[in-house]
């Protein structure tokens, strides 16, 4: 579904990603793990086209997407949920969803605001509230819902659990699994195993912009050495 091959990227003169290779298979949840500053967000930004790669290839649904504009990549069916949420604070919940809306083009499931409000009942109760007046958890739900309005085949989720209360995070994990059941592929970024463990099928661990580990989530959970060396508790 999403294949990244020997990807390198830099901010100006400072290189941040080095020959990163990873992939997400259709219908699975893969997690990119690493400490703060490891390069996870940079990796997602490069995939969605916000940052031009220095070298390497990115393929999505069988097509080269590196070098395309973000809006073109999004229209191919790749959704992006940034770590800092980036809700349009001036717009209401409904209007935020409207910005994300795109035609389905025969994708597995078609999302409408009504279906999304079933998935996120909280949002349904505040359709006309402005983004600025929502709590962190509500904003996190809205960013995901907003991205789903584009009817993506796969989504990139950047540290969705950060700053959420444990109960809310648990709810979020259920939602992510629900999305998987809908047929979506997910690339998740996390700093610790805590949230990832409950949802991911496979894991990649990065440090300093290099992939240090690739394998199943189960194998990583058992590998104490890798966990201690590269991950936050």
């Amino acid at each position: 579904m999403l294949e990244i091959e020997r990807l390198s990227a830099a901010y100006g003169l400072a290189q941040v990603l080095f020959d990163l290779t990873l992939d997400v298979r259709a219908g699975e949840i893969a997690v990119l793990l690493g400490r703060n500053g490891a390069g996870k967000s940079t990796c997602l930004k490069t995939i969605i086209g916000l940052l031009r790669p220095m070298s390497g290839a990115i393929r999505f649904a069988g097509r080269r997407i590196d070098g395309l504009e973000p809006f073109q990549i999004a229209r191919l069916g790749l959704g992006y949920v940034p770590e800092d949420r980036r809700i349009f604070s001036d717009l209401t919940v409904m209007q935020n969803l409207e910005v994300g809306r795109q035609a389905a083009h025969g994708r597995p499931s078609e999302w409408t605001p009504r279906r999304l409000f079933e998935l996120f009942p909280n949002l349904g109760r505040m359709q006309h509230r402005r983004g600025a007046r929502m709590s962190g958890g509500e904003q996190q739900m809205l960013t995901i819902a907003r991205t789903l309005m584009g009817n993506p085949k796969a989504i990139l989720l950047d540290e969705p659990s950060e700053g959420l209360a444990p109960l809310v995070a648990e709810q979020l994990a259920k939602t992510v699994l629900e999305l998987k059941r809908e047929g979506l592929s997910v690339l998740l970024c996390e700093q610790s195993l805590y949230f990832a463990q409950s949802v991911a099928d496979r894991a990649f661990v990065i440090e300093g912009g290099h992939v240090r580990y690739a394998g199943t989530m189960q194998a990583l959970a058992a590998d104490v050495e890798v966990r201690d060396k590269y991950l936050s508790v």
Partner: protein
Amino acid sequence: MTASAILIQFLNGLSGASSLFLVAAGLSIVFGVTRIVNFAHGSFFMLGLYVAYSLIDRFGHGAAGFWGGVALAAVAVALLGALVEVLLLRRIYAAPELLQLLATFALVLVIQDFTLWAWGPEDLLGPRAPGLSGAVNIAGHQFPQYDLFLIVLGPTVLLALNFLLKRTRWGTLVRAATEDREMAGALGVNQKWLFTTVFALGALLAGAGGAFQIPREPASLYLDLSVIADAFVVVVVGGLGSIPGAFLAALLIAEIKAFCIGIGDVTIADSVISLPKFTLVVEFVVMAVVLVLRPWGLLGRRLTPPRRVGAVERPLALPSRRAVYALAACGAALALLPTLATGYSLILLTDIFVFALFAVSLHFIMGPGGMPSFGHAAYFGLGAYGAGLLLHRGGLPMELALLLGPLVAGVGALAFGWFCVRLSGVYFAMLTLAFAQITWSIAFQWDSMTGGSNGVIGVWPAPWLASRTSYYFLALVTSAGGITLLWRMFYSPFGYALRAGRDSPLRADAIGIDVRRQQWAAFVIAGLFAGVAGALYVFSKGSISPDSLAVPRSIDGLVMVLLGGVQTLTGPVWGAALFTWLQDAAARNVEYWRAVIGLVIIALVLAFPQGLAGFLRDRFAGERHAP
């Protein structure tokens, strides 16, 4: 004033506000989404007026001809706006914001000469609106019907825009892109298309604002800069990006102007104050007051800078030993030049020295200070007037006048700077513009002191400096000395602290730098050196007029700095030399020299988005990086 007179003036204000609001709303929408401050917006207004004039002329003065002409004119300007966006602006959205400004200013020059070519230099007064050419009786006064129509037009457009922005998908996307264009793009919003339509809408509003003025004011070549200045003020007073704010501000300013004219002269303690004359600056005074009290405008909010991944500004390089030798060699060559060259080239070079110092002084606050002044000519002019008036009215010898004149500029910068450094970015730029405009109007109107529009004449240097060659040396030594001093300050602890304040004000504050004080000091130093340039200038020309501190002179300075490249050290000097030479050569040899300069600037901006010196530096990486 009687109650009925007050009512009439109030209505006058309302009708004046409409066209002001249309233009300002367009400027505001375009800025909100694209973050481009479009200098050419006033030119679109001007074109709207001219095109409407010609169309109505062709279609006939009947109702269909008039209204059809007005509507078509607005649409034509909108199409031109779309074309400009696609061909020019789209290529430079990623360029530094000041360079975008430079490109739109180049458009002003091109459009101005195009208008001159197409319609000639005479003012053209259009016909009255059929069906609305009469007057109605309101409380015993005759009030034009067309003005009543304009009173309705403003709120109608406000409502229409409100609907468009709040109730349509297009409007939702525009508002999303205004807040975070990168995120909108990542959600599949095609910004290119969105920006083109936004720009077209902005141009449509400007064109309509111009076209609807047909029965009220003649089409004139001066409209572009005067309208853009008015529109800037309205947008800034209302709050950048806020349409209701623009409406409110247009109303406020138009009403104050109407009442200034209506009240006429007032006598306070035996001195007559002419309020109608005050209309020249009233909007700038309003803006200055609003910006000091409410830095984000009446209904505006604090701007978040557009997010840009991967844009890291390189630190300003310390010039290498080789570069220093090369500069010294340049200076030596210039010192030897009078033995070879004569006459005109010495005059041109003297001008270049003056403007090089002016440009470097502006660069001092723009580059390390991060404060783009749009009114730096005020200090140039204050220095020039200071020197001229000290000589004439103060009876000082020329040498002393030359030395003390710049202090006048320094004092001006001290006073204005105190207010300006409280703001940043576009707001800072606008406040400097306001103070420059106020200074200009004082020079223009205080006849008894400054000679009004004629200025001060007969300001010649002392006999021992009067020859071309000796004045050339004076200018060379003063300018080179001033530039060297300023450049040394770039790399002094003061310069580093200034840059720290520019790059991360919070962190600079935290390590004990008083950012505002530093910026204030820099502002005063820059003003002082601009004053030196101005004082040099006045004695080289023998006269000084209000033109030398008007808006175009400030823009010249910006163009010089940006042409050379704001992130370079020596760039502004090359920019000043190139621009001064180009202006001189083009003005002497080509009829439409503004268009030529405009096209050259556009070509340079497209080819070298980092400025000339920036390009050369990247190409021949000769400068080392500062730590």
